[in-house]
């Protein structure tokens, strides 16, 4: 789901013209052992259409400042080591071409680590929280394997398809550090851990799916705290589309009967109830159904909104025309129970 760019595909190398442009880089610098505050170093460089972002990082280190630090390894977009941010956009440095960056942002580029508050040295961050969350969702098959199995555990192509893109994750952390909830709530698992959890939840060989799901939807750290901003889908260099996997985990909670009644699950179900009754939402009724007695905490706001003509009582709601169609479709098309 990441932003697609036009590439010069299919041109033989001999006719492919190498172009050059001047780019002003603002590069994040910080040494946690020495510096009180981070600062930005300016570099003006000629870059060619052949170069990727990593080439520029290398040139800064090799030609300008040997102390400049960043992580790199495979150079082929598979190890997930070199993820950074360019103008706020998560970028796998070895994969993205410089010219695509200037096409998106112009010729002033800011190079930063994935998370400035976790910077250790320049673009190198402490990814400890990422790995902690990754470990916490039990990212492996949990299965009672017999020592002397009598037959193979066959996974059909259709069953393997269920993993979708979740298996493509290279654990670069791009989505995790693009997630606004991770920034606010230290307990939140984050999109990478959820996508990884989905990968095992969708695996027919896994025996612990219900237990894992139960852990995933605990309040505060769990699935229901996702704000649905799609930053993770946008950031992923491998098109894993983590928010799609989060949505599928939500659906699994209901399909497998693991969902327990809390404000978030009731809120999701309240949509169906309200649509069945009015076609549209009964906004006040939705909050009441979701919160239960806890609705009292919303009373001061409700009074303010009512005074401004922002609350319509159930009897004042304009129902959808042809409501009978909607009701009939809800009867015939519902697939989930709670």
């Amino acid at each position: 789901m990441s932003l697609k760019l036009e590439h010069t595909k299919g041109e033989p190398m001999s006719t492919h013209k190498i172009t050059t442009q001047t780019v002003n880089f603002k590069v994040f610098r910080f040494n946690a052992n020495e510096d009180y505050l981070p600062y930005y170093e300016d570099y003006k460089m000629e870059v060619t259409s052949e170069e990727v972002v990593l080439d520029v990082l290398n040139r800064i280190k090799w030609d300008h400042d040997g102390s400049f630090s960043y992580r790199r390894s495979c150079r082929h977009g598979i190890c997930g080591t070199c993820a950074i941010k360019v103008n706020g956009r998560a970028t796998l440095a070895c994969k993205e071409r410089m010219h695509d960056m200037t096409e998106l942002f112009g010729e002033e580029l800011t190079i930063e680590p994935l998370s400035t508050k976790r910077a250790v040295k320049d673009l190198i961050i402490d990814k400890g929280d990422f790995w902690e969350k990754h470990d916490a969702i039990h990212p492996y098959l949990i299965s009672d394997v017999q020592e002397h199995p009598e037959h193979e555990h066959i996974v059909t192509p259709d069953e393997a398809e269920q993993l979708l893109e979740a298996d493509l994750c290279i654990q670069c952390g791009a989505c995790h550090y693009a997630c606004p909830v991770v920034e606010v709530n230290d307990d939140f698992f984050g999109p990478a851990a959820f996508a990884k959890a989905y990968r095992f939840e969708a695996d027919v060989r896994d025996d612990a799916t219900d237990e894992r799901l139960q852990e995933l939807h605990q309040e505060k750290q769990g699935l229901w705290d996702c704000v649905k901003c799609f930053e993770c889908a946008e950031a992923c260099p491998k098109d894993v589309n983590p928010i799609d996997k989060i949505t599928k985990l939500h659906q699994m909670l209901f399909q497998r009967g693991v969902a327990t009644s809390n404000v978030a699950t009731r809120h999701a179900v309240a949509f169906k109830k309200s649509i069945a009754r009015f076609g549209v939402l009964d906004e006040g009724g939705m909050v009441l159904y979701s919160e239960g007695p806890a609705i009292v905490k919303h009373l001061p706001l409700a009074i303010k909104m009512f005074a401004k003509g922002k609350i319509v009582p159930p009897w004042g709601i304009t129902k959808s025309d042809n409501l009978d169609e909607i009701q009939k479709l809800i009867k015939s098309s519902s697939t989930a129970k709670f």
Partner: protein
Amino acid sequence: MKKLKYALFTGCTAKQSTPEQMMSTLAVAEKLGIELVELTEASCCGASHLQDYDDFLSLVLNARNIAYAEKHDLTMVTICNTCQLNTAMTKHRLDNNAELKARVNEKLDEVGLEYKGTSNITHFLYAIIDDIGLDKVKEMVVTPLSQFNIAPFYGCHNIRPSELQNETHKTPENPYNPRSLDDLIIACGGATVDYEEKNKCCGFHVELQAPHTSAVLAGKAVAGAMDGNADWIVTPCPLCHLKLDTQTNHLSDAIGREVALPVLHMQQMLGLALGCTHEQLGFKHHIEKVNFV
């Protein structure tokens, strides 16, 4: 020029918690010479919460809404980012999966409807930019907003996922450096405020289950706009509007700093510039007083 005509999917909030958005949409459409046919049969889009509970049902209900726009043979215009996302997502999935489309149509057939995939779905902001054009808007401005610093707040579901969103309008949008709302502010004669949170999340969708997260995100957005010297914020999404406008006391508590700014709907800003009256634009329905008109 041929009169522009769209099928209007109002969404739920425009009829309830943001009546000013409905009022200003109609007032601005009239000024711009746009005819809007309201899809009064439409149901709620599910707001991505019904999608968490029952994916197939949400597809069927959204396909039904689109089918009504198709009956009019019109482009569907949305005025809520989340309606835009869920409706466009439904269209994308049905148009790219014949088997799923057939399953959905099997259900719609029970009520005598069919999803064909013939109507486009676009947000009002992009309909204005694509079909009227910012130059034309600029020509039509009667009250330039030249005395205001205006902070654009885009809202997630109009710019992400960019691959899907960019299918729905002609003007390409970079979610990391969006331009549409900035350009509209400039066309209205205002000065835009550039701030870090302008393309970030307002937290609306977790207001009930994660109130602290929600309030911090919204609080940071208002704070960012204030630090950029904004006189007010403008947004194309009524859900962002609710989050930023209605509970600044919670936002202030969450981030430990007093934050509050008037928040205008995109239609209200445009309405001001095009000479709509303050009554038409419904400023009396705001919680944070619109103190400059």
